[in-house]
């Protein structure tokens, strides 16, 4: 039975109210047990605390009064995302901030991405080729976003200059990210002076997109 806020009535028979009050107490205990330490739990130190926060999507961004913030779930393109709302009721310039991104890919691979509030997606990884990372190699980052920043750092050398001599980092410059977003959500690895033949074996990248 669901919770009934209109009981007992003054004319109700005791037997009728007993069932209704019992049902209300059971409903309260059952509903509270969702997301919270149970009301009939054995340790009252934990009363009121949460086990999980399951958030249903909100249609509108909430209003927050002075001294308040709100955490909530709102759909973005049909996907639930976690939002932070600073106090906005009296300070309209305070806008909601999206705290999550629809996906994440982290672990132990050479191509990973995560996110920061905004939502900005943060790509990090490395391009590796024992024969040398080619000058002009186009790197496309997924999931697709408009890249706002890309930076490269070189590591490892091929070893010899096509059989003509030993290559040392001292003769190399660096690799640079060029042609940002051309084509979309990509950059081009461009080697600097003396690196044009692709002597770098590893190029680490960091990129941020939105």
């Amino acid at each position, binding site marked *: 039975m669901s919770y009934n806020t209109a009981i007992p009535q003054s004319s109700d028979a005791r037997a009728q109210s007993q069932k209704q009050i019992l049902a209300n107490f059971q409903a309260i205990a059952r509903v509270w047990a969702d997301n919270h330490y149970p009301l009939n739990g054995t340790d009252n130190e934990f009363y009121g605390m949460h086990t999980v926060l399951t958030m249903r*999507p909100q249609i509108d961004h909430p209003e927050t009064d002075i001294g308040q913030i709100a955490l909530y779930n709102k759909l973005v393109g049909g996907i639930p995302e976690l939002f932070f709302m600073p106090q906005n009721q009296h300070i309209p310039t305070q806008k909601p901030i999206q705290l999550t991104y629809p996906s994440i*890919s982290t672990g132990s691979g*050479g191509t990973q991405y995560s996110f920061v509030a905004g939502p900005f997606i943060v790509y990090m990884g490395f391009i590796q080729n024992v024969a040398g990372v080619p000058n002009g190699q186009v790197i496309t980052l997924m999931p697709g976003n408009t890249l706002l920043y890309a930076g490269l750092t070189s590591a490892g050398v091929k070893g010899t200059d096509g059989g003509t001599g030993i290559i040392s980092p*001292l003769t190399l410059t*660096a690799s640079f990210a060029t042609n940002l977003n051309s084509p979309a959500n990509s950059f081009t690895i461009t080697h600097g002076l003396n690196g044009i033949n692709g002597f770098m074996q590893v190029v680490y990248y960091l990129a941020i997109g939105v």
Partner: protein
Amino acid sequence: MAIPPEKTIVFNPATPQPKDIIEDSQESFLDNFQVLYDSFKKNHIPLDATSNAGNHTNLQLLQQPKDTDFQTDQGEISVYTKNVEGQTDQIFLRYQGNQDEFQYTNYQIYSISPKNRQTFFFTFLPGKIIVYFGVITPKGSTFDLEIKPRIAKNIIGVNLCPFNVSSNTGFPLYPPFINSCVETSPGIFGIVSLQTTFLSENIPPCSYIVFANV
């Protein structure tokens, strides 16, 4: 005279029973209302507050067992905490449709005192990624960039950006080159070994950022 033990109040969802008279149920009613009140005033605005009833004041999340998978239906997000080995309790998220959970927060955030021509800061990205950053001011053609705390199991990204110009040419200096990422203990990377590029220029002062899996 002995002091009676303090009564433990417990919510009773099975009250009242059919044959109870008010005298039978009155105590359990009081107990239930008291537990409801006590529970609601923790983490929430109290039931008898004159305004904002229903709002949260705080959100204390009890540690959940390691193998807990919360049902997360379409349109929902679940937020909860679990203990992480070698760290403390951290926040986890599970996206709609019972997707794989991921660790949202990670370790602590603070800075370490500068040492050996290097400043040390670190923070995290969701997904068990630690982000080390700071500034190095090397003196010479090689430099061991230390990453602290030493909990990096896999270095996934390194970015170095010089912020000086050459005294000879006035042009910006080239960023250093990575010789190797060095394990300082089995399976843990603690040093990124740097070397200057392009002839004999020393490694310029650089800002650095290192991404690693923990």
